[in-house]
């Protein structure tokens, strides 16, 4: 049966309509992404350079969000930093999810030794407080970039997807349609990809959001400690520089509030989306059962 | 034929010295009206749905006497469980009791406040639930689950007396005393069901509702549980409403059998009467579908599917599946027709149907 039915858009629309939390979350994230994409076109990012503007200005007509001690226009900095942070989160999420899905599928389908090894590995890594290991790795890197950051942070994002996908694969491999495919002579890996994988898509989508969340959390953790990219501005680094230069103590609130607020919005959006997706996936389950 | 009603013989009604099932003598309890311990009048329960209200129970009336065992039979969705749950006000929103009365020894159960209901539950009317497997709290011992019932009703606070009462209850349902300190998962299905019976009789209620108490059990355990139930009933002198879909079981255990269809009570009669002289086509088909050793025949089910209660068939709800149906059946809802004392039917042709043999097949 052709999965791409003509009313895909309509079905998606109806699906979202039934789940307001998901819609709200996605809307928030889409708005933030738009800000990140459109912002640099509208606002002059040159103003985010050090010394581009008059330092320590309160928010006003000329500098909408004020400036920091180094003469950066905060609004411009925000516009520059948001896409960088989103990039890290997104790519780390994709990498973490990719790794997690593959490991989860392998563990769930082949079971036995493969499963034991993968599961133990995931458990061990989950036991070690991620931030500690990340910090360890990050301190030894000569110069941190956004790309490198994404790779490092992906290291923390793969465990939960692995567990989820593994659990789902385990239950799915017992389903009748898998048995039929097996009887028809479909082999191991091909079976995994043609029969099991498509049914995992909702879980993968939900896990993606979780992976991005974990990645973002790890990112901002590292950055707040000053271990983020030194030359490229991200939201976490903005917070770090603000703290480093004592913005909090010196009452330069406009310096740290915008990045904090933006980060909070991103996290809230991710939470709403992932909770909404969880509910959606569970509802579908209840209908199927 | 072996009869589970204490060996009085097939022709007897309720046990000696107790009330005749319907329309009989005055009760010895001064607080019962008209001799009935429970009088359900015109009960209506509806569930609002997107397509309009679903009439789960549509004008059901019956009476129950002390010591009597009433069996309510019907297909899934016929409203039998809903009827009895309504008596304890256990219908969950958005469902609601939309009309009728249920008078238990002088008090209308349906008119009680939540507070009053809470004190009445299990002290005057108790429930043996369907699926005892899941009805017991997995993290509490049997004793704890009987204790909290006693506590909720302020009964037997003194520890020694309490322990004795619990031991007594278990004994009455045929369980060893050590069961009290075990957890539900350590007990077999039949034992769990008996614990539920013990809980139901703990406060010596006047009415016990048993909602398909044996559905999940195998035949041998079924019989044991039913015997336990009857024994327990006699110990506290309660009346039982037994809900089920097994006519054979009803034949063995009930004094009076009521048949429900699409939320309505289509026939009710003392058990011998209903098997010897069923007057509603549905009842006949139910009985004839029972296998028996006496006659060998082809198995017959009842063709068609259970009706929707949101959009029930017009007139008599059974008419689409009834072999005797005529034009009139789709226009007029049959009214309550009293064929004999205690035998009520709702069918336009009840009086005209030919008599049946032991297998429920029509003669002539």
């Amino acid at each position, binding site marked *: 049966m052709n999965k791409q039915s003509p009313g895909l858009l309509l079905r998606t629309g109806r699906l979202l309509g039934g789940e307001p939390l998901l819609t709200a979350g996605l809307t928030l994230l889409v708005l933030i992404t738009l800000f990140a994409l459109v912002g640099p076109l509208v606002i002059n990012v040159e103003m985010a350079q050090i010394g581009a503007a008059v330092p320590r200005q309160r928010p006003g007509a000329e500098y909408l969000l004020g400036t920091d001690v180094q003469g950066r226009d905060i609004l411009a900095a925000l516009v520059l930093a948001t896409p960088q942070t989103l990039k890290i989160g997104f790519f780390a999420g994709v990498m973490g999810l990719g790794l997690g899905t593959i490991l989860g599928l392998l563990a769930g389908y082949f079971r036995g030794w493969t499963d034991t090894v993968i599961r133990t590995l995931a458990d061990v890594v989950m036991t070690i407080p991620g931030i500690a290991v990340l910090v360890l790795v990050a301190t030894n890197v000569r110069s941190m970039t956004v790309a490198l950051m994404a790779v490092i942070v992906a290291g923390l994002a793969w465990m939960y997807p692995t567990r989820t996908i593994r659990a789902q694969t385990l239950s799915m491999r017992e389903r009748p349609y898998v048995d039929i495919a097996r009887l028809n002579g479909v082999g191991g890996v091909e079976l995994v990809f043609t029969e099991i994988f498509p049914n995992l898509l909702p879980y993968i989508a939900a896990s993606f959001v979780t992976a991005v969340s974990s990645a973002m959390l790890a990112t901002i953790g590292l950055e707040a400690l000053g271990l983020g990219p030194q030359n490229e501005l991200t939201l976490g680094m903005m917070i770090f520089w603000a703290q480093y230069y004592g913005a909090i103590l010196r009452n330069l609130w406009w310096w740290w509030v915008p990045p*904090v607020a933006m*980060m909070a919005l991103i996290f809230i959006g991710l939470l709403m989306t992932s909770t909404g997706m969880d509910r959606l996936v569970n509802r579908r389950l209840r209908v199927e059962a | 034929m072996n009869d589970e009603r204490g060996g009085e013989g097939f022709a007897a009604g309720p046990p000696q010295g107790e009330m005749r099932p319907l329309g009989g003598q005055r009760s010895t309890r001064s607080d019962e009206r008209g001799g009935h311990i429970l009088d359900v009048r015109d009960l209506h329960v509806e569930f609002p749905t997107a397509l309009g209200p679903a009439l789960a129970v549509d004008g059901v009336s019956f009476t129950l006497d002390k010591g009597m065992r009433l069996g309510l039979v019907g297909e899934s969705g016929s409203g039998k469980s809903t009827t009895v749950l309504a008596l304890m006000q256990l219908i969950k929103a958005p469902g609601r009791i939309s009309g009728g009365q249920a008078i238990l020894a002088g008090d209308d159960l349906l008119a009680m406040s939540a507070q009053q209901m809470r004190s*009445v539950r299990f002290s005057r009317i108790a429930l043996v639930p369907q699926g005892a497997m899941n009805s017991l709290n997995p993290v509490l011992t049997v004793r704890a689950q009987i204790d909290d019932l006693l506590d909720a009703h302020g009964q037997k606070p003194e520890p020694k007396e309490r322990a004795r009462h619990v031991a007594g209850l278990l004994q009455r349902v045929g369980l060893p005393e050590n069961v009290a300190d075990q957890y539900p998962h350590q007990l077999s299905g039949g034992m769990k069901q008996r614990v539920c019976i013990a809980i139901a009789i703990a406060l010596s209620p006047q009415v016990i509702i048993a909602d398909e108490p044996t559905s999940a059990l195998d035949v041998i355990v079924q019989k044991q549980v039913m015997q336990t139930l009857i024994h327990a009933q006699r110990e506290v002198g309660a009346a039982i409403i037994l809900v089920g879909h097994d006519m054979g079981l009803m034949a063995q255990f009930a004094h009076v059998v009521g048949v429900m269809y699409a939320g309505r009570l289509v026939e009710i009669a003392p058990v011998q009467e209903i098997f010897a002289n069923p007057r509603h086509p549905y009842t006949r088909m139910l009985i004839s579908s029972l296998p028996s050793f006496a006659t060998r025949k082809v198995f017959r089910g009842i063709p068609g599917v259970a009706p929707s209660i949101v959009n029930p068939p017009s007139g008599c709800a059974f008419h689409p599946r009834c072999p005797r149906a005529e034009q009139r059946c789709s226009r007029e809802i049959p009214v309550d027709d009293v064929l004999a004392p205690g035998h009520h039917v709702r069918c336009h042709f009840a009086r005209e149907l030919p008599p049946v043999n032991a297998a429920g097949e029509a003669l002539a």
Partner: protein
Amino acid sequence: MTLLVAFLAITINFLIPRAMPGDPIEQQLSQLSASSGGNIGDIQAMVQSYRERFGLDKPLWRQYLNYLYDVARGDFGFSLVNYPERVSDVILAGLPWTLALLGTATLISFSVGTILGGVLAWPDSSRWVQILGVPVILLSAVPYFILGIVLMFVFALTYPLLPVAGGYSFGFMPAWNWATVGQMALHAVLPALSIILASIGTWAIAMRGMVISVRGEDYIMLAEAKGLSARRVFFAYGLRNALLPQLTHLALTLSHIVSGAILVEVIFAYPGIGYRLYQAIHAKDYFVIQGIVLLLSVSIAFTMLVLDLVYPLIDPRIKSARQS
């Protein structure tokens, strides 16, 4: 299982710093000499002697065995930066602070969050609770230390009600007296609050989901049919049955909580293990980092083991399954 995890954690812990490029000793000494103007030749000799001293000149497998031996004896080596301070001293100095903060905060947020989640899932619960639930849940999305920054700004700077940082006031000498306890408590308020407020929501959401599924069970129906009070049904029949998966959830998210707590300590310069880890990282104090990370991993694994032992107490089915 726990032993395996602990063992693997130890091994990974051993390998990661050594897998990184760069030699910390050489770096340290180069830095020192650069700031005091020594000459190159001496540096190499010093590096070599330090290497010998710390056993870094031996082949990897020997270092590994030595490491295992030392760890078993509780010897984590010396702090490279504050030599001759031992790593175990550094850890012991910071441990009580972290335990007090993390322990209390987790206990409070777990209890309050779990009950809140249960109440949110129960029908006929007060509207106020439902309304209160929303901001609490939203807060859970935010990482602990961001909330910490906000709280610091509001309660320590704008309205100086609580101390800004540290474990006790500047110039105060800690001792075994009530004044010290008072200082410690006061300085722990904001960090604890950051953790509590930001994590209550996660417990609440998880518990709510669990309780919703428990609500549909038959034993709840019978409990209500028995005429039990709403409170009894909620606690003994509802909450208790949903508690077990909630505890499992706790075990799984432990490392996440600890990570968050570390960052909170950094923001508030709260002298716990997290803060000392931060200091060690920036000073590239090799052995301290290793020691603390090892301690963290092992203690998380250990806590999971303890929780594992608690399960049978809560769910008799598990007790039976284990006995058989």
